[in-house]
């Protein structure tokens, strides 16, 4: 009886912690929604900003965010996947690989503003891409790399040795085995990494501060060398600059809400893809 009581007490404690976490998430969504829903309308999503950013919509800002996020993933996914495949499947096991792994993990710990400065020095200045979608995407891509590499590595390691052996025993080469058996099996896990990094990349402010973002641009970006407005930076700008703080604050909350939904939508889509892949494979 006493054992059961203390056990239940323990479980209740665990439940409370879980509830606190969910409540925090709920509170964030609630406060953002309560302040942001007021400005949300079809026009807000489809029009460009007007009257010194106190009216109109944020369409170019959403588009800008999509561009740099997409750009970052297009850059980081193949590179990260290739790294993970090399580390898991080809590199000789030993001290060198361990050092590489530790370096990649350390890359994940670098503060995002440092990536921003690096992007400014290398992509904006050295390569001369200027403050542009390209520079921002590359900078964000580097930020996403460690996440993509480590989740892809985990997914690759989780593919059972037995089906690799089966493939090799049928006369498939190592690369054929990786391409046809290992990668498709690891795909759901790899997608998880992509989901996480998309969420992170879309919401990052510091890396695009010096590399891609502009306070205001007229219309939509013309090419990958254009400056863009992007949601996270736009929120920051609305709260710190400009002449009409009150009107701007409401729009900032609207932007936050849109950013929240955008990330949820992208993640939801990737989860859908992953589930579909899983049901095909099992």
């Amino acid at each position, binding site marked *: 009886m006493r054992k059961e009581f203390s056990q239940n007490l323990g479980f209740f404690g665990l439940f409370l912690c879980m509830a606190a976490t969910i409540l925090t998430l709920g509170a964030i969504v609630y406060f953002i929604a309560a302040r942001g829903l007021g400005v949300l309308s079809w026009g807000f999503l489809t029009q460009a900003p007007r009257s010194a950013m106190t009216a109109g919509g944020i369409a170019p800002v959403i588009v800008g965010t999509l561009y740099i996020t997409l750009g970052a993933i297009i850059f980081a996914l193949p590179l990260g996947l290739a790294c993970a495949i090399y580390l898991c499947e080809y590199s000789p096991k030993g001290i060198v690989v361990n050092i590489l792994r530790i370096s990649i993990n350390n890359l994940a710990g670098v503060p995002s503003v440092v990536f921003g400065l690096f992007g400014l020095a290398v992509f904006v200045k050295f390569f001369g891409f200027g403050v542009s979608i390209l520079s921002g995407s590359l900078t964000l891509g580097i930020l996403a790399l460690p996440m993509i590499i480590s989740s892809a590595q985990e997914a690759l390691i989780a593919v059972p040795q*037995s089906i690799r052996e089966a493939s090799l*025993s*049928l006369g498939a080469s190592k690369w054929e085995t990786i391409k046809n058996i290992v990668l*498709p099996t690891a795909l759901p896990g790899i997608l998880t990494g992509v989901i996480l990094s998309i969420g992170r990349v879309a919401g990052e402010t510091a890396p695009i501060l010096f590399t891609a973002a502009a306070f205001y641009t007229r219309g939509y970006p013309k090419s990958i060398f254009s400056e863009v407005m992007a949601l996270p930076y736009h929120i920051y700008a609305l709260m710190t600059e400009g002449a009409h703080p009150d009107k701007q604050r409401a729009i900032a909350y609207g932007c936050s809400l849109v950013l929240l939904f955008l990330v949820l939508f992208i993640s939801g889509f990737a989860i859908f893809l992953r589930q579909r892949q899983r049901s095909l494979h*099992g």
Partner: protein
Amino acid sequence: MDNQVKMRAQNVDFFYGKTQALKNVSLDIYANKVTAMIGPSGCGKSTFIRLFNRMNELVPHTALRGKIFLDDLEINGPLVDAVDIRRRVGMVFQKPNPFPKSIFDNISYGLKVNGIKDKAFIEQKVEESLKKAAIWGEVKDRLGDSALKLSGGQQQRLCIARCLAVETEVILFDEPCASLDPISTTKIEELILELKKDYSIIIVTHNMQQAARVSDYTGFFLLGEMVEFGKTQDIFTKPQDPKTEAYITGRFG
């Protein structure tokens, strides 16, 4: 009767790092016969069978001494590609290991990686292989389903079919029934007896009754050495070595 030698192991030593797993093993595998390897766990029989399709070279820090022949070809020769050997010497593993793909794709995979693109030929080959592996009747209406939905016994027969599709000449069975129930085991054994008409078969088994039921020749392994090799009937009725006798009468193992 004159038996043709299909594969031959000649003075084979094998090492995992510094540990010697096989000591001077020599053995002939006859065409269209079933050769069983028996012995207690850790005796080297699985290591030995994996030399015949060069699977052991996937394990780091291993070394092989001695020669292994497939017909007249030395399979570890300098100009021989492991991929070519594995195409001719197929393997069925201890645990069924179908790919997480459809039943059809599991069988067609081997054909595709071997460069066959003709769709009609692939379809015909898939059907033929599934029939030979005695599983066609159970799966013919659901070739598009995931192979992982099949039972363990069905999965193992699918793995056999997968191996047959690439027109292998030798099939290595590494304890193929270790994870199967008795009925599935019977089916696999019947299949092995059927397959020896067209293939040379090597089977590693823990189960002495199984060796007695399916094999023509038996080799008894102990601590990395092949203690005795001969016709299965002789090994089980009049073993020459007292260690073999002790093992088959169940005094250790």
